[in-house]
């Protein structure tokens, strides 16, 4: 289980993440929804220990990310598609990662097959299309067969077949009892992929709910999301930021 508690991050005068708390449980795909600039990526980066929170904490099975014994075997992540050196081949990239966590070398070929990059394994990753780069990132996330998967916008750049593939893959990974946390601003995709939802706006939690519950509040999930984030913006405009508490009309 992942516990996010009172997570707060400030960049200069901007409060990117504001006392954000939620839990992620195994066995379901949890969607992470929010408008551009709502703090999704920053939250992901803090869960992965890339950025340090100004306040609050994240615990992954009771530990901080930096304290994980075999990070890649415990948490697989994809933050941005191009998170590799362009001069390295896909196979070398994955081989280096495998070595860092004593992951058996045969896993490299297995995940290359799994994401459909086997025939491109010897090519330098800098030449990859966005879709291929995304697949390489997913291969890296799957390499350690982790029980937690954190994916930021994984469907970016994928063709329709690729989108369906990742959706089915993530559902099956969750069904195996893993924590699967996926951010996206594609609401319709979230409706198909996720069971639970964490919705944030301007760094604060708007809803910690299920797709079914949230969809029931409006004609569609998209309408519900837009109504929720709209309300948050209006509420913010009318009140000084310090008067706000994290939970509001979101789940009502």
């Amino acid at each position, binding site marked *: *289980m992942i516990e996010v508690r009172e997570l707060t991050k400030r960049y200069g005068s901007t409060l990117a993440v504001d006392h954000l708390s939620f839990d992620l449980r*195994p066995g379901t795909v949890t969607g992470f929804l929010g408008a551009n600039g709502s703090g999704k990526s920053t939250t992901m980066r803090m869960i992965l220990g*890339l950025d*340090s929170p100004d306040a609050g904490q994240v615990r992954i099975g009771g530990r901080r990310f930096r304290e994980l014994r*075999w*990070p890649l075997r415990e948490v697989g992540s994809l933050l941005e598609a191009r998170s590799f050196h362009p*001069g390295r081949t896909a196979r070398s990239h994955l*081989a280096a990662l495998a*070595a*860092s966590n004593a992951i058996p070398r045969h896993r490299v070929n297995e995940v290359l097959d799994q994401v459909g990059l086997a025939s491109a394994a010897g090519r330098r990753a800098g030449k990859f299309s966005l879709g291929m780069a995304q697949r390489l990132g997913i291969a890296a996330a799957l390499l350690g067969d982790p029980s937690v998967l954190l994916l930021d916008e994984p469907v970016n750049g994928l063709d329709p077949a690729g989108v369906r593939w990742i959706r089915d893959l993530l559902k099956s990974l969750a069904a195996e009892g893993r924590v699967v946390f996926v951010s996206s601003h594609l609401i319709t995709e979230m409706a198909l992929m996720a069971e639970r939802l964490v919705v944030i706006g301007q760094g604060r939690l708007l809803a910690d709910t299920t797709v079914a519950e949230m969809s029931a509040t409006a004609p569609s999930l998209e309408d519900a999301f837009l109504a929720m984030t709209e309300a948050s913006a209006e509420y913010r405009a009318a009140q000084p930021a310090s008067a706000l508490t994290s939970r509001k009309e979101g789940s009502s």
Partner: protein
Amino acid sequence: MTALAARVPAGHYRFRHAARMEWIKLSSLRSTWWTLAIAAAGAIGIGVAVGINTRNAAGDLTNNALAGIIPSLLLMGVLGTLTVTSEYSSGMIRTTLSAAPRRPMLLAAKAAVFGAVAVTVGEAASFIAFFAGGAALRHGIPAPALTQPGVLRAVLLSGVSFGLIGLLGLGLGAIVRHSGAAIAVVVGGVYVLPTIVGSVTHKLGVFMPIDIIGNSLTTTKPEPCSAHASYCTHFLSAWAGLGLLGLYAAAALAVGGWLFAHRDA
């Protein structure tokens, strides 16, 4: 999380795992091998050219044969810098830290692997340059031998300087993080600054990395004071020079490591 715990093997990742990752990362880039090959070829080629043109048998023939080391070190400094900064420019740093999030250990592994590669290439280049430069001597000048006083030390320390300049670059890369800016700092700090400092005051010039390498590490005997000069430059001894250069590299790595551990990636 019991299910998760059961799936993960005992123990935890260690320095050797991070070092293995860094070795694969370094060795799987073609640019690494090109840069190392050009650095070695430059050091050897210049040594041969100087050997061919040497007419003064009383000069420091070992130092002459190692004359190509300093230009080659520029490439080692840049390569060391890029070892860190390319992680940031490519976004690889996110992936690296998701695999090995203990940052001081990660930087230590990076430095150990790169330092070992740089010293290995440096020693090979220095010994080949020494023998090739000696063999290229004409005008009946005999080639220097490793058994002569100070010669083996000069050749060995010349190779070590590849590692130290490489690590200085790596540390500066960790401090500055941006490739272009970091390379400017390395080139400026190691090559341009000494020229300025040296022209202002020779007393400080001897503490500059280039002077340490050229006049302390790779010499077999102290530079004689020129009879015509109004001053006499006292260069550091080989061992004092080695210590100071090591201190520079260690300081850059320590500051870079501290910043790496405390800054957002």
